[in-house]
Structures are given as C-alpha cells and as structure tokens.
C-alpha cells in the first residue's frame, strides 16, 4: 500500500452522473487485485475532510495507470468530477482484501455502481480463462454501465432495470434465478441486493462473495470505523473486507 499524489491522466464524463477517472501510479497499477479499492482525497481542502473509498475499476499496464468509475452522489464525488487532467489527487491504496478468484464458472452480479470492481474481476477471469456471466441491474437505463466492456471480454451480459428502460424490467434478483447453475457468485451493489443474493446463494449452496460498502475514515484498519457485523464479530470493511464470504455476514 502507498499514499501518493497521483497525476490525473484522464477524466471522462460517461453519462449524466457517471465519470471515469484515470490516475497514474506505478505502484497501484502493479500491485492491485480485483475488489481492492483506493481511498481518495477528492481535494486538498479540509472540506470534505475524509478520503472517499473508490474501487479499482481497471488497470492500464501500458501506462502504469488505473481507472476509477464513479457516480456523483454527494459533495465529495461532485468535487472529484471537477478535477482536471494534469492535476494531482492524493490516493491511498491498494486497500482491502479483494475477491478470491475460484476456478469455476462464475456469476458476477452488479447493482448500479457495483460494476466498478467487477469489471477488473472479469478481466482477470478472462486472463485465467474462467467463464463468467455478468448480470447488471439498475434503476434506469442510464444507471447501467460497462455492458459493452464486459461483452468485449467475450462474456454474456444480462441487464435489468427497475423501470424497464433497458434490458428486462424488474429487480436483479429475478434475473439471478435463471443463473443459479453457476458455481461461484461475486456480487457488488446495495446492501439490500447483496442480502437477497446471499440468501439465494446459501439456499442453492453456491459460494458467494460480496463486496460491502461502509463509511470509512482511515481505510487501513486503524480506526475501527468501518465495522461490518459478521459471525466472528465486527470486521473492518477496509482491511478484513470489503469482500466477505456472504455466509459470514450478519445482515
């Protein structure tokens, strides 16, 4: 892990609220695994005070950089979206445990911004010749990201939106029912979704890893701020997680 002022190589607005940021870092681009994240100081100002955790979305080995895919949800991400090419942003990472890649047919389930770490995961699966199917769910068509990117990797992608404006209409859970023949689930998204998925996975006895969100301060395990309730007590999302075995979580 490293804390460094990373150069902004690119900042692209993907749609209304979604941005992709490319940051230069030899260390992070060489030492990260899918499911890990960086803790980002969106501006040098003391407001917003705390770093914001953002998943590593993609590694660009060719220029020692990595991408973050993020959604504007509040002041911090808003300020981040205004940072420009050539500026430097302080990042701390790579942090957390990341996904454990199993050598079995995989099902990747993304709710909204949950695609961010799962794309990195899919790339690694592709490299390891693991077959994967990707489910992406969101509120509206414009909250569905990366569909084409996953397809370019050669994976099957299924989309569902709550208002039916893209893919099937409904919740991702419904989509999931058709794919319970897979042997490992990797999920990232809102807590309610993860809970449903893990219930279903437990029922079908499919191994399931979930990436849990939590407010963070230090990002490295020192402050005990990002507790997640598990069967072995409170675990730290930033260090013991953010990826947990679904059956470990007390929802």
């Amino acid at each position, binding site marked *: 892990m490293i804390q460094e002022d990373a150069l902004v190589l690119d900042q692209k607005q993907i749609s209304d609220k979604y941005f992709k940021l490319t940051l230069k870092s030899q260390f992070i681009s060489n030492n990260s695994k899918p499911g890990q994240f960086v803790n980002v100081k969106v501006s040098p100002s*003391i407001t917003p005070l705390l770093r914001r955790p953002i998943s590593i979305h993609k590694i660009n080995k060719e220029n020692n950089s990595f991408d973050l895919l993020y959604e504007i949800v509040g002041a911090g991400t808003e300020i981040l979206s205004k940072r420009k090419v050539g500026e430097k942003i302080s990042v701390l990472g790579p942090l957390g445990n990341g996904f454990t890649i199993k050598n079995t047919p995989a099902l990747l389930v993304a709710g909204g911004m949950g695609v961010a770490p799962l794309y990195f995961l899919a790339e690694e699966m592709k490299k390891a010749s693991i077959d994967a199917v990707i489910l992406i769910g969101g509120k509206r068509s414009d909250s569905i990201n990366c569909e084409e990117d996953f397809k370019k990797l050669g994976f099957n992608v299924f989309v569902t939106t709550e208002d039916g404006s893209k893919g099937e209409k409904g919740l991702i859970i419904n989509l999931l029912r058709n794919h319970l023949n897979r042997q490992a689930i990797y999920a990232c998204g809102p807590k309610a979704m993860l809970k449903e998925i893990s219930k279903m996975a437990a029922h079908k006895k499919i191994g399931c890893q979930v990436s849990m969100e939590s407010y963070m*301060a230090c990002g*490295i395990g*020192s402050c005990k*701020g990002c507790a997640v*309730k598990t069967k072995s007590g*409170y675990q730290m999302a930033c260090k013991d997680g953010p990826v947990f075995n679904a059956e470990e979580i007390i929802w």
Partner: protein
Amino acid sequence: MVKIAGIEMKNPVMAASGTFGNEYSKLIDINKLGAVISKSVTLKPKAGNPPPRICETPAGMLNSIGLQNEGLDAFIKTTIPMFSLFEVPLIVNVAGETIEEYVHICKQLSKHSTVKGLELNISCPNVKKGCITFGIDPKATEKLVKAVRKSTKLPLIVKLTPNVTDITQIAKAAVKGGADVLSLINTVLGMAIDIKTKKPKLANITGGLSGPAIKPIAIRMVYQTAQAVKVPIIGVGGITTVEDAVEFFYAGASAIQVGTGSFIDAQAIIKIIEGLKRYQI
C-alpha cells in the same frame, strides 16, 4: 530528544489514541514519532458499537466506535510484543468502568517494559459506563487518578474531556490526584442526522467530534489549563499541519498528538515532525 513525563522521545509529536495502529508502519516510519498512544484497552474485550460508526461533518468527523478492542489479556499477548519490535515509546491508553478496573489494568501493564507510560482515558463519550463519568466530575477524577497513581510507577497522563463547564477544575483535580501530564482534548460530543432517512447518522445516535472543526475549542482549553496547572500539557484536537501544531505550543502545550489528521494524510504526522524543526519551540 525531549522528555515528556519522564519519557524520552525523539520529538514531542505523538499519534493519538484510537486513530493509529501498526497498519501505519506500511505508510510511514513509525520509529520517527515521539510516541504512539495505543487504542484504549479495557479489561475485557469490547465489541464496540453497531455501525454506522462514523460520519463526516463540516471540517470534522463524528465517531462512535465504542472502544472496540481486544481486551487486556490479548493486548498483553499480541499488541505489546508487536510494538516491542518498534523503537518508538509505547504509551498505553486505558479505559475502565470502575476504579478497580483502571487500577487492575494499569498494574498489569506496568509489568511490561515495552510500556513506557499510561494515558488514562476518562473522556470517551461513546460508552455507557465509566470513562467519561469520571472525567466530568472533579471529585471522581481525583479519586480515580489517586488510586491509579498508587498502583504504578509509570508516567501517568490523564486525558480530559472537553464536555465540561470548566476544564480547569477537572485539570486541577487530576493533578491533585497525581497526574504527571494532562492530555486534552478528547472528542466533543456531537450528532448528525441523515435528512433522507430522518435518522441519526450514527447507530449510537451521538458520537465524538474530532478534526479541524474542534481546533479552536482545544486551543482554548489547552490555554486555560496551562494557566491553571503546572504539569506539562499534551495538546490534541484538529491538528493536521505543522502550523496547527505550533499554535498548540504557543497555547501552552509541551507536546501534541495527531488523531484525525492521520486519516486525511498518513504522512501528516511526519510532515509535522519535520516542519517543527523550523520553529524554536
């Protein structure tokens, strides 16, 4: 080299309790610090409060960790040996529910040469029993400090809470009880509400405010306390830069601690140590 409460330190800059663990050794050279104050240790392991435990506020943050820690036995078995590998003085922060607990913990800790000093936490606002109930009452403060003082030869730092009408009364009581040094301030009791859910942002409802927002309160209390007592004072509260640190020295502090500042910039504490060389403090 400086000497705070008889503890030899390379400089007067310490990592504040609850905000700094050995994880930081991956990011900075911990041996450069004046001292590390470990997270409050309690007699029994403590699970801490339910999440969410932290949230951000203007130029500050609230936490309601609730003293999650492994408990005295595990601390002695794992954390002390781990810290013995560093060359930085370890000061152990102690929290208890009763005087007997404080005394017992301090006695046990005093047997370990890695432990260079004790900091009594009588100021945590996030637990239901003990702790801050001592820190808001001068008589209880004095009684507790006196009891602990008798039980250990280690340098004794007493950490005060800002959530009182008159900090100097508590400070004087702690000194009367036998405190070698006072550290202040612990967090200011605060609260935030999520207006979308209409619920408190912390599961514990209230939490402790830290970070730059509280610096003016900490500076004031250090200043007032420095006028009221003769023992050295360790200033803490909202320090993120060397300028902040210097402000505390001018307010009357002999040393400082960095807490929330490390979350924002893991190197802050090193930058402060380097920066202080430019000042004649």
